[in-house]
């Protein structure tokens, strides 16, 4: 069997639960893969680890992959999308007057520095017809932001829509409630995508395909039986809290797959959409060496 190191983009949980279900269901062994799943240390780090061969496969935001390839020429390519929509949203208190993105005008929004959910907010607001220059930006650590929102010290919080479930559970503990204003779909961007190194693609294209199949097998199983995915992650990983995973896993899986894009393309990239993705990244963070679609994606279907 091929030994494979698979690194997540952050600590296990939510959207990554299915990989563990895949372990139990034999998705990897069926492909003759002996996989080791380890936690990740952030979106960029995942690219570094794959580029340097520390891990063989990983999963991260396609925008991050595009940015790093452009700026550093990191030898990696995405092989399949997992989350086909950008989950960027803003979270507001239930009773907030903010109903749409344009309502943000004249209000404050909190974000941690360099937060991915913040990157596309100006773009999202422009698309929605608002004026981002009228929004007051407040930066603070991620862990402090929830507090600031619930205390009413900021009016909104830049976050992934999938995280708002978690924020809401925290809020409910304090007798409050938050809701998400989701706009990520208007951006028409890919999010979490499995990727590997050029070296791996060159030396073992077959393994790349088999690994993609194993991942598909895992997600298919999780979509069918989210509870099994929860059981799997709780069983496999120390420190997993069943309650939290029960709140997060079905929600994340549903966000990733219950949409038109997945319905239309399944586990394959829509190359036009990838091209759009590259353009959008270039818009928000001007790229020095804007890559072509083929610099970013390895098409496993051919």
């Amino acid at each position, binding site marked *: 069997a091929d030994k494979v190191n698979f690194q997540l983009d*952050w*600590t*296990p*949980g939510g959207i990554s639960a299915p990989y563990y279900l895949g372990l139990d269901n034999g998705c990897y062994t069926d492909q003759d893969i002996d996989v080791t799943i*380890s*936690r990740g*240390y952030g979106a960029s*780090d995942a690219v*570094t*680890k794959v580029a*340097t061969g*520390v891990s063989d496969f990983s999963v991260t935001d396609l925008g991050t992959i595009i940015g790093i390839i452009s700026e550093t020429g990191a030898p990696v390519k995405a092989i399949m999308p997992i989350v086909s929509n950008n989950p960027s949203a803003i979270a507001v208190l239930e009773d907030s007057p903010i109903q749409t993105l344009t309502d943000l005008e004249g209000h404050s929004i909190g974000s941690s520095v360099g937060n991915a959910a913040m990157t596309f907010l100006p773009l999202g607001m422009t698309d929605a017809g608002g004026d981002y220059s009228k929004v007051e930006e407040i930066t603070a650590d991620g*862990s402090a932001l*929830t*507090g600031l929102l*619930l*205390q009413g010290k900021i009016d909104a919080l830049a976050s992934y829509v999938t995280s708002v479930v*978690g*924020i809401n*559970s*925290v*809020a409910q*503990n*304090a007798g409050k409630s938050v809701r998400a204003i989701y706009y990520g779909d208007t951006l028409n961007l890919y999010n979490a995508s499995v990727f590997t190194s050029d070296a791996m693609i060159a030396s073992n294209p077959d393994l790349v395909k088999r690994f993609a199949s194993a991942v598909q097998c895992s997600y298919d199983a999780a979509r069918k039986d989210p509870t099994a995915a929860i059981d799997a992650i709780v069983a496999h*990983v*120390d*420190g*997993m*809290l069943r309650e*939290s*995973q029960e709140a*997060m896993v079905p929600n994340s899986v549903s966000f990733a797959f219950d949409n038109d894009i997945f319905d239309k393309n399944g586990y394959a990239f829509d190359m036009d959409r990838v091209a759009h993705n590259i353009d959008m990244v270039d818009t928000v963070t001007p790229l020095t060496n804007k890559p072509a679609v083929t610099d970013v994606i390895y098409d496993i279907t051919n």
Partner: protein
Amino acid sequence: MTPALRKIILPVATFLAFLGVWQFLSYAMEIPIYLLPSPVDIFHGGTRLGMTMLTNTGETLKTILIGFACACLVGIPLGVLVSVNRTVSEMIYPLIVFLNAIPIIAIAPILVVIFGTDMTTRLIIVTLTCFFPIMVATASGILDTPSEMLDLARVAGASTMTEILTVRLPHAVTFIFSGLRIGVTVAVVGAVVAEFVNANKGLGFLVTSSTAQFAIPTATACVVMLAIVSVLLYEAVNWIHRGFFGWSIKSNVGD
């Protein structure tokens, strides 16, 4: 109350009082969990992890202890080296300060690439984080040696090496332990950082993963466990100082 008993009862009592006040304030001021969980919340958050908490504490403790030991093995000789020779000192001391100031986060990827994703990297990170206080304190102690003792060593024909081993290092013991006391608490932080950048287990991992699961009391419980480990290690250093280097301990204030 015997002194030994006092040494245990007093801090424990203060700690319990502190918890009491904290719990009371939490309750009275209705401090919400997302800001700061109360001790009771934290306790419940911790029990959610069950044994996992203890096994992971063991992991982290191992990293701290081995890493701290390495830091001593690096820091003390380096402290001697930078104080032995003016040229060496002027050449390399600023470079060490420079390298010490570079956040681990910035060099974590290259460490992982070079040393792999296992214990070695974590130990290197702990060592890098906490050798510096030990080095600085050692150097300060080495340079503080009274000239009359140096005179003795020199007339006795001591080489620089002998002078260091027989006079300067013993004199520096108080300084070195001051550095070790600081260093051991830094080592705890270092181990957490190491687990933030490279670990699938340990308290640092649990903190991150609990936070990612929005389980704030659980994350805080892990933090509290780390702080307890820190106190125990600090006391262990004190105890070693008193037990093995008692001669270097002078009087208390007010007798």
